[in-house]
């Protein structure tokens, strides 16, 4: 029997979830959670050398390989962060051992769902996988069982369900468009078949389908009119989940959208999805930038920052062209790494301070230098200041937009500056000034957050040529 990395990537979390569901003892669970995530990451790394053949259900191609890697990497670092975070929650009694068993099993199940969505070659399977990932995160958002957590989970559930229902309608329409060309049955749902046949699809049917897909998956991406679930889900769930929500789940939903955008780009008569994506992207950016000013809760603050960044990314893909797509892909990667690092530090900070309210914290760089400066570095990176990687991608988005559509660029820059101001304002409250709130010792796991920040810093200073070549190649694919 030959080794199949794709099967290994999918089976590892699935088996781990089954074992974690029955395993007693939180230390054992957290350890196994880390080992399983590490194993998935190692299997994902083998994809770089050996790319398996495309099947009817699964594929590995240039578009998804980096996302799979990123997914497994952040899955692993989050499991390391989660081990120390959850230990603290257990000590303070916010969580009980039985919740933890459930939590760890769900964590692996979520990684399975996301990897399956990324690796799926079948648009129906991709939809099912996104639904699975959503369901598991809903369960984890409600983990604390407080009124607020249940409310957040309920809102996320209902809005997420409407989103995936609309996405399914869009998927059915794509099938209807494909059927006369590709033939009935499974063939007309296989993405690689769809791509080769896309030029002959009925363009008007494809257009309508894309609108449903944009609204459906856009809900999960957290685009502005459909974002209402996102801040609550981030604020009320355990912080490791906030980190994977922002860092991974939003990306997975956006990735699903990109797959369909490639189909549209392959059909010469279909509408350009650009204007729709540009509109939604700018709306999300500007809206979130204004909302950032009124936040009192630190996790909610960074949740709105995620909406803002998703806006920038969708805008970049809407502008399209090699440069726009390149910037979008880079921004997706950088945002995932930076935002999850921020949530790692925020998780420990809220545990020390015993509150999520910004007014209850201050002078972190003095009381907890490592945590405080990690947060400062993360925020400096996320607002797009050099020398971090987000600066590179945002600079690319802005400069390419100025060259092609100066009016849009003005709105874009205004949104960016607004968000910049809001985040720095809050950062000074939290990180500098007199020490506020409890300043007890902290058992933090620093390695995950500094590993992420180091990668983001490296990307800002020197992008490996292989990665640049890959991004350029995929940017052309995206049209």
């Amino acid at each position, binding site marked *: 029997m030959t080794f199949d990395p794709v099967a290994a990537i999918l089976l590892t979390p699935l088996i781990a979830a089954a074992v974690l569901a029955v395993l007693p003892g939180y230390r054992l669970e957290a350890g196994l959670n880390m080992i399983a995530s590490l194993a998935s990451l190692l299997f994902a790394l083998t994809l770089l050398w050996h790319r398996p053949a495309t099947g009817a259900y699964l594929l590995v191609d240039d578009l998804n390989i980096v996302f799979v890697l990123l997914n497994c990497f952040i899955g692993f670092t989050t499991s390391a962060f989660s081990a120390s975070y959850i230990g603290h929650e257990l000590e303070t009694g916010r969580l009980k051992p039985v919740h933890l068993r459930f939590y760890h099993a769900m964590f692996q199940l979520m990684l399975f769902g996301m990897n399956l969505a990324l690796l799926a070659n*079948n648009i*129906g*399977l991709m*939809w*099912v996988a996104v*639904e699975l990932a959503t*369901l598991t995160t*809903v369960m984890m958002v*409600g983990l604390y*069982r407080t*009124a*607020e957590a*249940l*409310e*957040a*989970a*309920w*809102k996320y*559930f*209902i809005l997420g*369900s*409407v989103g995936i*229902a*609309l996405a*399914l*309608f869009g998927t*059915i*329409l794509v*099938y*209807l468009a494909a*059927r*006369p060309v590709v*033939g*009935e*049955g*499974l063939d*007309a*749902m296989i993405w690689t078949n769809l791509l080769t046949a896309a030029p002959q699809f*009925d363009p*008007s*049917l494809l*257009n*309508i389908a894309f609108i449903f897909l944009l609204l459906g998956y856009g809900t999960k991406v957290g685009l502005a009119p459909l974002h209402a679930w996102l*801040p*609550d889900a981030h*604020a*009320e769930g355990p912080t490791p989940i906030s980190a994977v929500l922002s860092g991974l789940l939003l990306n997975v939903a956006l990735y699903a959208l990109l797959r369909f955008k490639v189909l549209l780009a392959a059909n010469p008569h279909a509408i350009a999805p650009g204007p729709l994506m540009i509109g939604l992207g700018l709306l999300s950016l500007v809206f979130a930038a204004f*909302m950032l000013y*009124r*936040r*009192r*809760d630190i996790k*909610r603050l960074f949740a709105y920052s995620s909406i803002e960044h998703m806006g920038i990314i969708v805008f970049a893909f809407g502008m399209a062209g090699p440069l726009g797509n390149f910037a979008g892909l880079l921004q997706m990667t950088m945002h995932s790494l930076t935002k999850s690092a921020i949530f790692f530090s925020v998780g420990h900070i809220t545990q020390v301070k015993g509150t999520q309210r910004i007014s209850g914290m201050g002078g972190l760089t003095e009381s907890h230098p490592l945590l405080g400066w990690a947060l400062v570095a993360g925020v400096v990176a996320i607002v797009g200041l050099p020398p971090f990687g987000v600066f590179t991608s945002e600079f690319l988005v802005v400069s390419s937009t100025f060259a092609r559509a100066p009016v849009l660029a003005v709105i874009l820059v205004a949104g960016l500056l607004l968000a910049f101001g809001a985040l720095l304002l809050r950062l000074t409250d939290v990180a500098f000034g007199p020490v506020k709130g409890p300043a007890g010792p902290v058992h933090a796991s620093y390695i995950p957050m500094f590993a992420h920040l180091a990668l983001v810093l490296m990307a800002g200073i020197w992008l490996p040529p292989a990665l640049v070549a890959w991004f350029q190649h995929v940017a052309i694919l995206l049209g």
Partner: protein
Amino acid sequence: MTWIAPHGLSFDIAHMLAGLLVLVSLMMLYQVRLTALLHVLGLHAFILALSVAWQAHIQAAPHLYITAGIALAFKAILIPYALRRMVFQMGLHREIETVGGIGLTMLAGIALVALSLEVMLPVTAHTDPVAREDIALALSVVLIGLLMMVTRRNAISQVVGFMSLENGINLAATGARGMPLVVEISVAFSILIAFIVVGIFLFRIRERFDTIDVSALDRSRGGQS
């Protein structure tokens, strides 16, 4: 491939059942009592089951009978029954609170039907007629379901709205001839709905919220307090 000819008996029955589903969707909009709404929901799922079974028959696709069976047993009987029990056990308000008047909502519903016909019929001109009509009517059901979710204040009627929306999607999926994974998707959706219902029940949303009125959720938005 052989398409079912328009205006044959097979086509007319499929068309009638799909049309009935839209009609029942509109009926949901003017219900003012929760228990009555649940009865209409059962009727909605029952018509869906008939429609799916008919599609299974005319497409000679026996696996669709499974979807029809799920619709009948799970969505037409079990879920409305469970929700009804919940309404009684948890002592919920029996009246449905709406945003905007019933008349206005009905007008909006009619406009949505017109909109979906206007949007879908031209673009599906080249596909087979059964799928074409089904998709257009299914979109109406989906949009009315959405309308219901945004105009209803309490959690149970939002769930009913979601279920009718989901029935519309099932109609579209079964109307699209030869679509793979339909059964799997209907199972996935049933699981989703079961989660929602169990969620309401286990988490005792009413106890947590004091009222099952969803606008009470707004206080968790943050920023204001």
